[in-house]
C-alpha cells in the first residue's frame, strides 16, 4: 500500500527565514509520481510541482526548491526567504504510474510571521 508521511504538523517561522517541509513516502512501485500542493487560507488547492521517480534532479522555481532522494524515500520542499504569503497548508502526494492510486499526506501548516 502507498503511504505519505508529513511528520511536521505545524511550523512557524519569521519572515525571511528559510524553511523545509519534510515528506516521506512508501510504495512498492518502481515507477511513481510525487506532488506538492499548497492550500492557502482561502481554501483552494494549488498544484506546485510534479516529479517522476526516474528524475532525481533537484528543482528550483524562484524561492521554492524540491529535493527528491529515492534512497531515503523523501521529497522535501524548501522555501527560501519565506514571506507572509507563503502561509498555507502544504500537502505532499504520491501517485502510481497511471494516476489512479493517489495518496495525500496529512499536510503541514506553515505560518510565516511578519
Amino acid at each position: 500500500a502507498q503511504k505519505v508521511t508529513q511528520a511536521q504538523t505545524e511550523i512557524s517561522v519569521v519572515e525571511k527565514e528559510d524553511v523545509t517541509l519534510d515528506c516521506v513516502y512508501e510504495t512498492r512501485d518502481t515507477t511513481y509520481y510525487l506532488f506538492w500542493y499548497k492550500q492557502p487560507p482561502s481554501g483552494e488547492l494549488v498544484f506546485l510541482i510534479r516529479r517522476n521517480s526516474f528524475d532525481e534532479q533537484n528543482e528550483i522555481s524562484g524561492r521554492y526548491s524540491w529535493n527528491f532522494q529515492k534512497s531515503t524515500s523523501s521529497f522535501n520542499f524548501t522555501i527560501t526567504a519565506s514571506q507572509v504569503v507563503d502561509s498555507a497548508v502544504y500537502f505532499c502526494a504520491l501517485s502510481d504510474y497511471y494516476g489512479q492510486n493517489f495518496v495525500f499526506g496529512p499536510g503541514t501548516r506553515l505560518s510565516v510571521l511578519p
Partner: protein
Amino acid sequence: NAGVTQTPKFRILKIGQSMTLQCAQDMNHNYMYWYRQDPGMGLKLIYYSVGAGITDKGEVPNGYNVSRSTTEDFPLRLELAAPSQTSVYFCASETGAGVPYGYTFGSGTRLTVV
C-alpha cells in the same frame, strides 16, 4: 477554460435532508474524484471514477453515492445528512490518458449539517 467547477460553494442542511453536490470539468479528463476535508485535517477520498459509467469507493464512502453518466460530470449525492458530514468537499480531475500530471481541483463546497 473553466477547469473544474463545483456548485454550490456553501450549503447548510438540516439533519436527514438530502442534496447533490455538482462537479463538472471541461478538460476531457477521464479520472474524477471526490474528497472531503474536515477542519484542520487532510483529504479523504470518498469516491472516484476512471471513466463514464465506472465508479468505485474510496476510503470514506458511507453516506454518499455517485454517478458518472458523462465524462464531464461527477455529482456526489448525500442521503440523510448527518452532522458528521459537515466538511469541505473537493472535486478533482486528472487526465487519466497516460502519466498523471496532478489533480486539478475545484474550489470546494463548504457543507454544514445542523
